[in-house]
């Protein structure tokens, strides 16, 4: 109940932001809140923090911690995390069992690798947590000015701040905790707050203190201040607050306007005083923080399946060997007099079955080498390093904001290489959220000569079309350009085209004013007064300067004003007004001051407009009005709003310019601009006071229908308007967006735009960034407003379903292979479509379309659409966005990318990767994604290969030992195999491998398709590698065994014992797997060479050193290298033979594949290798255009489509001209 009331209050206070001063008594009309029961137990003794040091008023300190662990919980918690992996549990079990007699190895050789692997992972966790801790401490140690006693303020670190403290916060500082605003540097106790870190909104919010606390406006006044706040318990809701302040036994209600939230920033206000209400973890922002869901990449999920396959293999061979053991034990062992029966159960012929069972456990441990223990940890290491490279890529570093790319989670790197669909937000992602005032239409005349980006893109495109690249094509065309223009009626003339291009060029020389890109000498520099309808122009500019909610901020350097506006369009209007000579310079609670520079008088005149009422903009009203009294005492209503809304409210005599304005509005719309219509009306004093009375009554009324009453009354006033004209602002595209989209399209990615904007804007932006082009067939699915309001749900759904079916039919019946379709759907319709029965039809249609644009979608719908695409297509989706409204989508998608930079941190906090600009997405996907995918895929395959090659030799050998579980290798060899001897090369493969360089990746975006098609990690390839491992194990084992089994291996006549055979075999394995990885790599820096060949050398060094240890440690490996093996030529010759034989088939496969069925990157590597790209530019270009993914969106597709069109026409022409001549 209390909540509902609060919400109502909240709305009101935002709707009448500046109107409050006119009716200050309205606030106090409500009585104090009735706070009872659970959820409202908090009591804060203002200025008496000492009372909060004991229970029950002892609340948490202002210390915040985002760490996962602390010193005590680290060990158990981190260990638990580690052993949530099945493989680790298996190794733990094996390690425990290795302490019992069943073990085939010494306990240390089982425990050491596990400890190493788990320790490394835990160290990584600890390091990450440490970083978080440092980050936290930075925040915790920030200083804030806190009231100590007797009106003295002193600085204290944030973490020491307690509930009840009085805090003084100065301009541009963050609030250290959730505060109750007591007073500010402004007399009326307002302050401006930027909440970017909370909700991503850049506009300033106004907070107001209670009247009763207004006198507390200097340090001294806090000497004797005391009060008690009773309020709600900590909760995550940012927009509500319920509480009462008791001062001198008088209760005052509190609402969210008095609450300053932690992590928001004080702006435009010199200082404020506040009382700490919620500290640290209790503060709303901390209550709000959620950990993003942990995501795992597909490759990793598939890897789990391979591990299951290997587990199956492991169990299978264990069963074989334990059956073999049982049989041997039962039938043969009694005959082996040299092994008298054991009294225990391990080798007991009488209980062969039991012995067999024990042996099963032994075997499960023994063949554990099939499952690479270091796989997880290696992958983790590799991914962290990959992420480091992503973070450090200077090509993804934004110079302007100083923001590098940031891989926030490292476990999705390879997923970047497999993306199929990109779902993008529009505002702030594709566009900068910076509006430029570009054009306007006043009194039916269009002003503004600058071209919008859409126009420029179109012009450039046309220029390209007119000058086709294909030279033969041009030669075949005698009439050349003239012919084209005749044929294309919808094209503007060349002269206009030139003008547009030239105007753009000139713009480059002008100093750029942010938000203003207008150029027209007719109204600039005061020339407007010479225009025909000067009085209309004057009013128009006044509206721009007066009708807004912005705050001016004097820029001391330039002496001009900057504006803090709620929306960027408003800012653009104010800048425009300033440039026209109507400089908005001051706002008080009741007035707006505008410095007008009239051409008649040299000096600017400051005019005051008394602000009587402000009817705020809401998405429902789609308009905003102010009622002002000018210096002559006349009352005006100034209104700006969506054209359709304004046009409906025009007076009969106010439609003078309607026709011309509508035409201009359409033009602007086509040029991709955002438009608003401006209108005014004069109000008689009597009418106003009558209306205002009613308005005030409505405003002070209590009850649920106040909202609608207010709306109705506002509506009454905003009628019979007189149209002045319209504005057009450009929503600027971010740098490089069209090019990036073009490249991504060439890489075969589908791009969906999900935006909250209206359909027209979305379509305009679609054109601007080449997602849409002329000649594309647009399928619009929308249910009309009347239908939505009048018909039943079933009828509406039926209608939408029909539209979808029609669309699908259209796509199906299309014969032209180059035809492209665009699907455009609005949010209302989408809410029906997303219901279960229709969504698959919708998805099928959407997948067939080249581009999809969803407009007017809510954050929730964004997430739902993302889920639909993710689950419906089963492909990998990437969501990119910048604002709090994209969080759902970012968390839902397989990969979430946040734009870090201008807006708040919400999207970034929820994302997996953060980049500063949309255009960096190209490099992130096409270069890093591609590399990481291949690296990880090859790395995992190789891992399985090497462990199979190694693990199976153990199995073969066991068959020769009566299945007893004896291993031919020394325990230490095996211990080192995974941990040291073969792990570093594979890590270098995972970190440094590049099939082609980054430039080539960008030049051949189609290479990216290897990822989405999963060419490097399909089962064919995985089993291929496993087969290779099987082959290698056979070669290594049997060649060695046959060579060494009974003959002397040295001139001295000594025969090889188990240690010699085992060591030779192991040497062969080390050589074989390292040569294999060298064959797999295609990019060798000194690091790879060092690690690969260094691993081989390390083996010999280890063997040497191990042999030098006491024989009690090294056992049979004592001095084995220097005494027995190294002097024997057979040892070296065998190594060479086995290594070569192991790698020959793979080498043959590789060379034949390259030569006769090359993959895309093979071809490019070869071209690069022969330096053909430098010698033969034409060939290089041809290859590049060939390697482009067939695409229907983007620049390139536009060009292709146009060329096709021309060719088609040419053919027709040719045909027409040749047919009468030829007899055929």
């Amino acid at each position, binding site marked *: 109940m209390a909540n509902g009331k609060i919400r109502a209050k909240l709305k009101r206070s935002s709707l009448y932001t500046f109107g409050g001063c006119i009716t200050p008594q309205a606030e106090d009309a409500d009585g104090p809140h009735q706070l009872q029961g659970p959820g409202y137990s908090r009591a804060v003794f203002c200025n008496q923090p000492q009372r909060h040091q004991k229970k029950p008023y002892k609340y948490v300190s202002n210390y915040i911690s985002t760490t996962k662990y602390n010193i005590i919980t680290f060990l158990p918690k981190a260990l638990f995390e580690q052993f949530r992996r099945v493989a680790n549990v298996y190794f733990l079990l094996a390690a425990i069992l290795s302490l019992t007699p069943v073990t085939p190895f010494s306990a240390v050789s089982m425990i050491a690798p596990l400890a190493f692997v788990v320790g490394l992972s835990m160290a990584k966790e600890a390091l990450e947590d440490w970083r978080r801790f440092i980050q936290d401490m930075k925040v915790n140690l920030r200083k804030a000015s806190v009231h100590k006693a007797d009106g003295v303020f002193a600085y204290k670190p944030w973490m020491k701040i307690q509930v009840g403290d009085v805090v003084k916060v100065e301009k541009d500082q963050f609030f250290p905790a959730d505060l109750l605003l007591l007073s500010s540097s402004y007399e009326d106790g307002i302050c401006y707050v930027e909440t970017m870190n909370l909700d991503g909104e850049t506009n300033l919010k106004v907070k107001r203190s209670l009247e009763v606390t207004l006198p507390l406006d200097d340090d001294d006044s806090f000497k004797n201040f005391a009060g008690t706040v009773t309020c709600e318990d900590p909760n995550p809701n940012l927009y509500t607050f319920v509480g009462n302040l008791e001062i001198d036994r008088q209760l005052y209600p509190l609402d969210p306007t008095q609450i300053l939230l932690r*992590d928001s920033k004080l702006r435009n206000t010199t200082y404020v005083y506040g009382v700490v209400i919620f500290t640290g973890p209790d503060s709303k922002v901390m209550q709000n923080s959620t950990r993003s869901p942990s995501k795992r990449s597909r490759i990793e999920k598939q890897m789990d399946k391979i591990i299951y396959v290997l587990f199956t293999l492991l169990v299978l061979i264990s069963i074989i060997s334990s059956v073999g053991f049982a049989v041997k034990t039962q039938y043969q062992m009694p*005959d*082996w*007099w*040299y*092994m008298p029966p*054991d*009294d225990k159960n*391990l080798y007991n012929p009488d209980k062969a079955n039991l012995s067999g069972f024990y042996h099963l456990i032994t075997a499960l441990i023994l063949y554990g080498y099939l499952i690479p223990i270091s796989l997880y940890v290696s992958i983790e290491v590799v991914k962290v390093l990959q992420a480091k490279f992503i*973070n*450090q890529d*200077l*090509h993804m*570093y934004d110079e302007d*904001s100083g923001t*590098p790319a940031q891989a926030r989670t490292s476990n999705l790197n390879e997923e970047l290489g497999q993306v199929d669909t990109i779902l993008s937000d529009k505002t702030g992602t594709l566009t900068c959220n910076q509006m430029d005032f570009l054009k306007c239409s006043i009194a039916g005349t269009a002003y503004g000569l600058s071209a919008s980006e859409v126009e420029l893109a179109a012009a450039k495109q046309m220029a390209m079309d007119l000058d086709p690249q294909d030279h033969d094509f041009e030669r075949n065309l005698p009439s050349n350009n003239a012919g084209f223009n005749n044929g294309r009626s919808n094209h503007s003339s060349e002269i206009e085209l030139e003008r547009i291009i030239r105007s753009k060029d000139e713009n480059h020389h002008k100093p750029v004013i942010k938000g203003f890109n207008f150029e027209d000498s007719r109204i600039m520099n005061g020339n407007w007064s010479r225009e025909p309808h000067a009085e209309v122009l004057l009013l128009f500019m006044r509206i721009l300067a007066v009708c807004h909610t912005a705050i001016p901020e004097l820029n001391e350097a330039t002496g001009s004003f900057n504006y803090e506006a709620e929306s960027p369009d408003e800012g653009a209007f104010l800048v425009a007004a300033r440039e026209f000579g109507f400089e908005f310079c001051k706002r008080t609670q009741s007035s707006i001051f505008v410095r007008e520079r009239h051409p008649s008088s040299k000096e600017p005149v400051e005019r005051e407009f008394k602000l009587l009422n402000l009817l705020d903009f809401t998405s429902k009203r789609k308009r905003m009005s102010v009622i002002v009294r000018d210096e002559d005492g006349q009352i005006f209503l100034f209104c700006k709003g969506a054209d359709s809304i304004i046009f409906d409210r025009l007076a009969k005599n106010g439609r003078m310019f309607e026709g011309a304005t509508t035409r201009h509005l359409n033009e602007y719309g086509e040029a991709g601009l955002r438009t608003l219509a401006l209108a005014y009306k004069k109000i008689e004093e009597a009418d106003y006071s009558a209306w205002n009375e009613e308005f005030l009554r409505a405003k002070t009324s209590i009850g649920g229908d106040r909202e609608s009453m207010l709306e109705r009354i506002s509506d009454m006033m905003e009628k019979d308007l007189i149209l002045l004209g319209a504005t057009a602002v450009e929503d600027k595209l971010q740098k490089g967006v069209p090019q990036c989209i073009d490249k991504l399209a060439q890489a075969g990615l589908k791009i969906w735009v999900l935006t909250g904007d209206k359909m027209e804007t979305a379509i305009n932006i679609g054109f601007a960034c080449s997602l849409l082009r002329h000649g594309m067939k647009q399928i619009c699915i929308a249910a009309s407003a009347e239908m939505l309001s009048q018909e039943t749900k079933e009828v509406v759904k039926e209608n939408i379903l029909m539209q979808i079916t029609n669309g699908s039919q259209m796509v199906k019946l299309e014969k032209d292979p180059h035809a492209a379709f665009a699907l455009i759907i609005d949010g209302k319709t989408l809410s029906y479509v997303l219901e279960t029965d229709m969504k698959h039809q919708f998805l099928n249609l959407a997948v067939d379309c080249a581009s999809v644009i969803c407009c007017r979608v809510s954050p929730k719908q964004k997430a739902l659409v993302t889920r639909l695409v993710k689950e419906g297509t089963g492909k990998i989706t990437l969501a990119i966005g910048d604002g709090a409204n994209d969080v759902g989508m970012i968390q839902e998608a397989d990969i979430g990318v946040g734009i870090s930079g201008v807006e708040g*941190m919400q999207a970034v906090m929820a994302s997996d990767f953060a980049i500063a600009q949309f255009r960096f997405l190209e490099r992130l996907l096409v270069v890093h994604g591609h590399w990481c995918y291949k690296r990880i895929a090859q790395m995992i395959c190789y891992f399985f290969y090497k462990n199979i090659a190694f693990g199976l030799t153990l199995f073969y050998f066991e068959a*020769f*030992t009566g299945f*007893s579980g*004896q291993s031919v290798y020394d325990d230490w060899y095996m211990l080192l195999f995974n941990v040291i001897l073969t792990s570093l090369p594979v890590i270098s493969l995972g970190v440094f491998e590049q099939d082609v360089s980054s430039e080539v990746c960008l030049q051949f975006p189609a290479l990216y398709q290897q990822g989405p098609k999963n060419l490097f990690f399909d089962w064919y390839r995985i089993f291929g590698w496993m087969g290779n491992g099987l082959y290698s194990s056979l070669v290594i084992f049997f060649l060695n*065994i046959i*060579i060494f*089994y*009974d*003959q*002397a*291996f*040295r*001139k001295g*006549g000594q*025969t*090889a*014992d*188990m240690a*010699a055979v085992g060591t030779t075999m192991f040497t062969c394995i080390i050589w074989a797997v390292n040569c294999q990885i060298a064959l797999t790599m*295609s990019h*060798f820096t*000194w690091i790879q060479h060092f690690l690969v060949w260094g691993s081989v050398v390390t083996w010999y060094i280890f063997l040497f050193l191990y042999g030098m240890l006491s*024989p*009690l440690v090294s*056992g*049979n490996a*004592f*001095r084995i290298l220097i005494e*027995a093996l190294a002097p024997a*030529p*057979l040892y070296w*010759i065998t190594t*060479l*033979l086995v290594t*070569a034989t192991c790698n*020959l088939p793979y*080498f*043959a496969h*590789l060379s*034949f594949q390259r*030569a006769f069925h090359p993959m895309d990157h093979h071809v490019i590597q*070869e071209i690069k*290798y022969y330096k053909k790209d430098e010698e033969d530019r034409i060939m290089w270009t041809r290859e590049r255009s060939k390697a482009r993914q067939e695409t229907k969106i983007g620049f390139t597709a536009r060009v292709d489509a146009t060329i096709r069109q021309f060719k088609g026409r040419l053919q027709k022409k040719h045909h027409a001209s040749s047919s009468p001549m030829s007899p055929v």
Partner: protein
Amino acid sequence: MASEERSSLSAGVESHRAPVPVHQFKQQNLPACKPVLTPAWVITTYFLIGVLFIPIGFISLRASMGVVEIVDRYDTECVPNSYKSDKVAYVKDMSVSKNCTRYLKVKKRMKAPIYVYYELDNYYQNHRRYVKSRNEQQLLHGLRYNSTSSCRPLELNKGLPIVPCGLVAWSLFNDSYSFSRGAEKLNVNRKNIAWQSDRDHKFGKKVHPFNFQNGTLIGGGKLDSRIPLSDQEDLIVWMRTAALPSFRKLYGRIEEDLDEDDVVIVNLLNNYNTYSFGGKKKIVLSTSSWLGGRNNFLGMTYILVGASSMFIALVFLLLHKLSWARQ
């Protein structure tokens, strides 16, 4: 908060000032060699492998061919006819003489040193239980070291520790051979048949056999308790467990040349019981080459791998020419 984070992050990217190699490393732009398997490379590699491997194959084959080897299986022949049906009883019966004489004809001149091996078959010296049943500490330090649980069941006898303990030592091979050529006795040098390091560092110089083969379980050979373990080379050789169930171990060296058609008379004591598990016993006389014993397999494999490599090179060349011509 955001701004601080940003500044700390951008500090990480400050690689403008970094030296060139570091910068190149961070940008993944280090100079690299990017070998590409072009047809020329592939053909050359295969060809080279062929050119390298085939000669190695022939050389090792030649070395292996040069080794002369005489192998004689004696376990069946050396059982008196009366025991033929129950060989185990024969070998266990202490009263029956185990003497046996074999005549080995030298088919080709054998140059000294001629190595004498015994070969056992179907004998699981590599069984886990067998391999583990020893104690390195005891072998080196003798009785001073008494934690010998790994040696069970041959750890203690009548409450006293056994040195050397364990199954391996206990099952020591104990057939013995002596050789003569006609009337002339051929000396067998039985020194230096074990690894130097084993004698010096693994078997104690002051450790003497103790309480060995004294118990109820009688296994293989006995040891002279006067001789320290480091000099018991038979034992040292035996204790180097073989990798496979069929193995040869060095017995000694004949340091005289044997001529073609010489007949070597072997007087042997057929003590060791291979009958109960159906194993074979052989005596082997063999010369050695720089590669060791007679081992044609190695050379053959080399030739095979080399040849197939040549073959692949040819196929590749052919296919390449064909596809090139088609283009």
